[in-house]
């Protein structure tokens, strides 16, 4: 009997068009749009690359002091040295002032470094790239000050001083913290998976609709049938878990293999996290559906509204919302089902071990179990006549 129920539960779930739309089609559409919009942002705008700059080298009236200093600091050589090599700092275009202004206006260069008398910088915006250029100009100008002061204080040590300023040093060494994908726009795709998991609440809600006599004809027939309610409900619940898991697998596979989203090196665990998230979503819908004798539309609206609220708080619409909440109310992130799912995927990507991931999986299991028990508790001994 159980298997009979299970089979028809799965078949009837697959025939609900709304579920197919929200759980399969919608994530595919949204995922594709996310990929188009955010796919190249990290590499193009967040990762350091040579800053395009126009250098104006006209020097109509160089002051004598500057010319003297230029012998120690051959500006053009310095600029050339930082625009060569494997990781160049500048991408230089030598040009005249008029052309440089034009390049800046069109956004082809971030700034203009001009050597008209002394080094100066022109930019059209304030930002980190502009600050890097300002630092470069400052570095050049302050080096002149440093050398002048040092030589003044001890003229005999001029050779050592010039050698010290010209020696290239590497004072900073990197301490790498992760080997995972550090593109934080991937968080949008984690949130997409969390959204599909939370939309599993609609699948969960269908369980109660199909079992509650006042919500559907099928429910009315089931209420009258001699089959034990516990078996019927359990079959519905497991059937929904299976359908939801299939949707989660399709979603992750589409993101990973069609859109080529990098989830790190632990893909099986990503599937596991997504499936568990889906089960949590179904349990949530089952719990909401079991509350009182509310109409289907109201229960559906509650499921949608609460799911979207959870997804909003975990960063589906505004990427860093979860971090903002972490500062104000960290406890909420620990129990928000969508945030728990996105966190588990994030930890899989960036962590070296599984300890934080395991904590999140335990949270998902506990939340799911609590919601299923609550759902069973609320539907227990509820007869058709009592609805």
């Amino acid at each position: 009997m159980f298997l009979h129920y299970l089979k028809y539960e799965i078949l009837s779930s697959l025939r609900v068009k709304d579920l197919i739309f929200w759980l399969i089609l919608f994530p595919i559409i949204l995922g594709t749009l996310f990929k188009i919009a955010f796919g190249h942002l990290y590499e193009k705008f967040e990762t350091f690359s040579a800053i395009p700059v126009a250098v104006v080298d006209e020097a109509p009236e160089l002051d004598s002091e500057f010319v003297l200093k230029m012998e120690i600091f051959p500006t053009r050589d310095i600029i050339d040295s930082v625009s060569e090599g494997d990781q160049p700092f500048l991408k230089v275009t030598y040009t005249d002032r008029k052309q440089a202004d034009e390049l800046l206006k069109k956004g082809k260069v971030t700034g203009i470094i001009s050597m008209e008398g002394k080094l100066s910088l022109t930019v059209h915006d304030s930002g980190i790239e502009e600050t890097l250029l300002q630092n470069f100009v400052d570095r050049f100008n302050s080096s002149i000050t440093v050398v002048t002061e040092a030589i003044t204080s001890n003229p005999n040590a001029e050779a050592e001083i010039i050698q010290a300023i010209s020696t290239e040093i590497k004072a900073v060494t990197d301490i790498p913290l992760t080997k995972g994908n550090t593109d934080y726009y991937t968080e949008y795709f984690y949130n997409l998976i969390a959204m599909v998991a939370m939309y599993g609440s609609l699948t969960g809600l269908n369980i109660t609709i199909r079992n509650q006599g006042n919500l559907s004809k099928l429910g009315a027939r089931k209420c009258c049938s001699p089959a034990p309610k516990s078996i019927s409900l359990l079959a519905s619940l497991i059937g929904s878990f299976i359908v939801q898991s299939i949707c989660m697998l399709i979603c992750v596979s589409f993101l990973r293999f069609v859109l080529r989203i990098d989830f790190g090196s632990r893909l099986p665990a990503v599937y596991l996290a997504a499936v568990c998230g889906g089960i949590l979503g179904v349990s949530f819908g089952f719990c909401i559906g079991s509350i009182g004798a509310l109409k289907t539309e109201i229960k559906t609206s509650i499921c949608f509204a609460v799911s979207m609220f959870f997804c909003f708080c975990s960063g589906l619409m505004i990427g860093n919302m979860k971090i903002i909440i972490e500062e104000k109310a960290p406890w909420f992130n620990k129990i928000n089902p969508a945030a728990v799912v996105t966190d588990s995927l994030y930890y899989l990507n960036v962590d070296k071990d599984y300890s934080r991931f395991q904590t999140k999986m335990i949270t998902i299991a506990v939340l799911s179990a609590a919601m299923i028990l609550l759902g069973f508790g609320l539907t227990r001994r509820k007869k058709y006549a009592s609805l």
Partner: protein
Amino acid sequence: MQVFNAFLKVMKRRMTSALIYVIVFLAISFSFANSKSQEKVFKSTKLNVAVLDEDNTPESKALTDFIGTKHNLKQIEKDENIIKDALYWGITVDYVMEIRQGFSQKLEAKEYDDLFGNYHVHDGFSDALMEQLLNEYITAVGTYQASGMTTSDAMKHTADALSVESSVELADKNSEQQNSDFTEEFSAYFRYMPYILLSVLISVLCPVLLAMSRKNIRYRTNCSSFKTSAYTFQIFLGSMIFVIGIWLIFMIAGTIMNGGIFRGKTWLAVLNSFIFSILSAAIAVLIAEFHPSDTAINLATQVIGLGMSFLCGIFVPHIYLSSGVLKAARFMPAYWYVKANNMIAGIDTFSSKEVAVCFLIQSAFLLAVALLAALVHRTNYSASAQLNK
């Protein structure tokens, strides 16, 4: 006005979802409207830097103080996971560095390599900026030391020498185009409008038009003495009142956000949004002509609304979109809407001729969609007439 009244009655039932869209959009717009200001002078970027001082000597403290004059110093617990999460998001801190134990001794011994550790997550600009600053600082200290100064004196001199910042000239990219009437910040309100217009108009107008053209209602109307032209006119009137009503709500809200009646070039943005509103309504009519189910309407709303928003520069500005995406977006009306909006705001070079071209292209889309809707309607009508024969 029986048809008109019936139209409004059906629409009333669908207004809740429209109002949710409108209210959420306006609430978000109002919350963002107050936080913007026009930039007039260059301001160097100050990073949030956390320094983990393992050396804990006067020299390491002097360095920390120096970093504090250039950037914002933040505290962070020395826990790998906490540092990793903080750097991954880059909200609380941009850079976490460690002053290694033995820093002062190495400095004294004139050994300048590997003095600091950089907790590394992103290959970003923050890392480049800080590495540049730290190398510059140590080089300057080394230069002063080469002149015979003690380490502490060298550090004092270095801090003084590096405190001088070159003045940076801020060129106004579009000085001729930028206007105070329609600022770049305020233009964002108009930029996001197409998404809401498409979502509201498709999700509300479509089901209402479908309800009005349901077979049994349509047949009853057809066999009545009511003229077809009068029927069409009343449906058209109802739709126009709804479209203009929604558009007016946005314009009134925009006026409040603007702090008074629109001026100058803002009226061009108003005209732009009006053309797009009518175009969105025409798209809704076209969809309704295919008699879709509720699920299909949902799908159409999401695909058209989100699709145009992501591809045409509504959610992600044109500058961030790849050239391939922008080329494809030219075949969608929202691209021309955003292009006109950008020119009016001075984000792109303003040209009245090009703005007019954008308006004309949107109008051409409107005409094409309307003709297509009429064609589909005529085909459906002929098909059903054939069946009834």
